[in-house]
């Protein structure tokens, strides 16, 4: 296999880390809805932590993107 093709594949695989973040964000919002349904009064307090968690999980997906950039940079 050509090495540039392998680099392209590697970039794709690195970016596929988005899948994990998708699961994580799904969990966060699902649990938020569950928590609000059980205890509607706690919505504001839970919501604060939900957005922090959302941003942290989203950032983890972007670490994969950064690795894809690094591969792209190494490829030249």
């Amino acid at each position, binding site marked *: 296999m050509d090495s540039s093709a392998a680099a392209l594949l590697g970039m794709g695989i690195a970016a596929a880390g988005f899948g994990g973040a998708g699961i994580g964000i799904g969990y966060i919002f699902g649990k938020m809805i569950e928590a609000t349904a059980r205890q509607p009064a706690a919505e504001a307090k839970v919501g604060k932590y939900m957005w*922090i968690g959302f941003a942290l999980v989203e*950032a983890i997906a*972007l670490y994969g993107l950064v690795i894809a950039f690094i591969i792209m940079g190494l490829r030249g």
Partner: protein
Amino acid sequence: MENPLEHFELHPLIPLSLFGIDISINKAVVMMWIASGLVLLFFSVATKRRSLVPRRVQNLAEMAVEFLRGLVVENMGPLGHKFFPFIATLFFFVLFANLLGLIPGAYTVTSQLMVTGFFALVVYGLSLVVGFALHGLHFFTILAPAGTPGWLLPLMVPIEIISQLARPVTLAVRLFANMTAGHIILIVLFSLMMTAPVYIGWMPFGFTVAIYGLELFVAFIQAYIFTILACVYLGDAVKLH
């Protein structure tokens, strides 16, 4: 389609060099000046006609400052008041830099790893300095969380060292990657719209609008996350678990 990363390249506007170190004035430097100027302008407008019952801009500024003060005290205790100016400056500069980058034609300063990396190093370095100044060599107990059984220490200490070293890296990469990725998505969607025929081109254009809204939100939340993590790291150094 042109290279979506081209937007992030920096070219010197005024080439300058000091003792062989490149200190050229480029777009990012100019945007940083504008961002800090806007922060100053915002607060000078907000505090111009102070009244006991705050109105409009003063209300907004007071809300933000009160919110940040609550954040600092919550994480660092009463000692946090000393760090409040630093944390507030960090928050407003990152926020204005993030928001400024969303204006078409402007440059996102925080999409440079150099900038966010330096912020993260300053925050982490400050937390180390504060920790050693307050606790002396006792600060090393941060590597062994309270209540760890003795036989677990050989395992816990390396893990804690790694987690400590990962802090500045993740702090820098989180902000940088969020800003870069958001702008790349906008560029890709926009160039899709420009290349597609009109009867299908409205679709990516609609997405551009939606993603722009998300990016506005991300600009706020990433500035908030950066600040709250800086508070947590400083709070760890102050409180020592």
